[in-house]
C-alpha cells in the first residue's frame, strides 16, 4: 500500500479553521439551559451545532492531510492547549448575553466573508465545506447583528452591556486579519484566503451595524495575537478541561 505523505501546510490551515469552529461551538454549548429565553437558548445551541458540524468536517480533513492515523475526534479530544490553533476571540468567556452576542457578531461577520473566499479554494474539501457552511454562517451573522442593534438601541442597561461586550471583544479582532508566514503561503498556494483583502469590507459592515445600534465603534486597543501559534489565554485550558474530560477519562466510551 502506498503511504500518503503529510501535507503540513494543508494540515495547519485546516486546524486553524476547525479549531475556531470547535472552540466557539463548545462555548455556545455552555449556554444550554441558561439563556434569557427558550427561543434564545435554541438559537445559541443551534449555532453551536452548526459550528461543531463544521469542526468535524475540517478536523477530519486535517487528519487526512496529516496522514498519521488521527481523525477529527482524536484531534479535538487528544491535543493540549499549545497544539490548538484557534484565534483568541472564540475562546473568550461568554460573559453576559450581550458579551456573547458581541463576540458572535464580530466572529460570524468575519467567518462569513472568509468562507465566501474559501469557496474558491484550490483544495476541493476546503471549498466544499466553505460553500456548505457559508449558508449557515450567514444566518449567525444576521442573528447576532440583530441582537447588537436591539441591545445597543434598547434600554440604558442593555446598551451599557453591549458597549462593554464589544469593548471586551474588540482587542481580539486584529488577530482575525493577521497574515503570518503560514497564512501567506496557504494563500499563495490557493488553499487559504488572503484575509487582508476583505478587512475594509469587514470594517464597513461592522460600522453599519453599530451605526444602526447608535453605538460608537470601540476604541482600538493593543492587539493580542498568538492563537495561531498556540499561545492562548488562560481561558482555553478550562474550555478543554470540560470538553475533553469524558473521552480522556473513558477512552473507549461509546454511546
Amino acid at each position: 500500500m502506498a503511504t500518503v505523505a503529510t501535507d503540513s501546510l494543508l494540515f495547519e490551515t485546516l486546524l486553524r479553521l476547525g479549531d475556531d469552529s470547535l472552540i466557539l461551538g463548545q462555548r455556545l454549548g455552555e449556554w444550554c439551559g441558561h439563556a434569557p429565553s427558550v427561543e434564545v437558548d435554541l438559537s445559541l445551541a443551534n449555532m453551536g451545532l452548526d459550528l461543531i458540524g463544521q469542526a468535524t468536517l475540517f478536523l477530519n480533513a486535517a487528519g487526512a492531510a496529516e496522514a498519521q492515523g488521527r481523525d477529527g475526534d482524536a484531534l479535538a479530544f487528544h491535543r493540549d492547549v499549545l497544539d490548538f490553533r484557534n484565534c483568541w476571540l472564540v475562546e473568550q468567556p461568554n460573559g453576559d448575553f450581550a458579551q456573547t452576542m458581541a463576540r458572535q457578531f464580530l466572529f460570524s461577520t468575519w467567518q462569513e466573508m472568509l468562507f465566501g473566499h474559501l469557496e474558491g479554494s484550490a483544495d476541493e474539501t476546503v471549498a466544499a465545506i466553505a460553500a456548505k457552511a457559508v449558508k449557515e454562517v450567514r444566518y449567525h451573522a444576521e442573528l447576532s447583528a440583530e441582537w447588537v442593534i436591539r441591545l445597543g438601541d434598547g434600554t440604558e442597561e442593555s446598551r451599557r452591556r453591549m458597549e462593554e461586550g464589544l469593548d471586551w471583544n474588540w482587542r481580539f479582532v486584529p488577530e482575525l486579519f493577521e497574515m503570518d508566514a503560514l497564512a501567506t503561503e496557504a494563500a499563495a498556494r490557493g488553499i487559504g484566503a488572503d484575509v487582508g483583502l476583505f478587512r475594509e469590507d469587514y470594517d464597513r459592515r461592522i460600522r453599519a451595524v453599530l451605526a444602526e445600534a447608535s453605538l460608537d465603534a470601540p476604541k482600538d486597543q493593543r492587539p493580542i495575537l498568538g492563537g495561531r501559534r498556540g499561545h492562548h489565554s488562560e481561558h482555553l485550558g478550562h474550555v478543554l478541561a470540560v470538553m475533553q474530560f469524558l473521552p480522556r477519562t473513558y477512552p473507549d466510551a461509546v454511546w
Partner: protein
Amino acid sequence: MMAVIDREALWQVLDGVPDPEIPVVSVVELGIVRDVREDRVTLTPTYTGCPATQVIERDVRAALDAAGYRDVAIETVLSPPWSTDWISASGKAKLHAYGIAPPSDARTATCPQCGATDTEEVSRFGSTPCKAQWRCRACLEPFDRFKCH
C-alpha cells in the same frame, strides 16, 4: 450471474425511508438522496451539524440491506451543498399537512393550521436547525417554518 440492479427499484426503497425528525417525508422528498447508481447511493447532509445525518445513513443502510441490496454502498458528498430548493413538491405539501410551513421566498409564512398569511417570526431557530419558529396572528397557534436554505 449477478442480478442487474434496477435503479428505479432502488429509488423506491429509498423513498420508503422516512426522515427521522419529520417522518411524514422521505429522504428522497427532502432532497437528501442525490444520486442512485447500480453500486452506490449518494447522500448529502442538510445542515453540517444536523444530528439526524448519522441516523439517516443508518436507516438507509438498513433499508437497502432489508431489500437485498447489501452490495450497494453509501457515499456522502458535501458539494453541491443541500438546498431547500431540492425538497420536492410532494414533500412540501406533506410538510404543510403535517403542520410545518414549507420553505418559500414569501416574506410571511402561510399558517399550516388555518391558512392565514397574517403570521410573524418568533425566533430564527426552532426545534431543529432547519426550522424557524413562527406564530399565526389569526388563529394564534405557534408553528414551525422550514427555513429557506
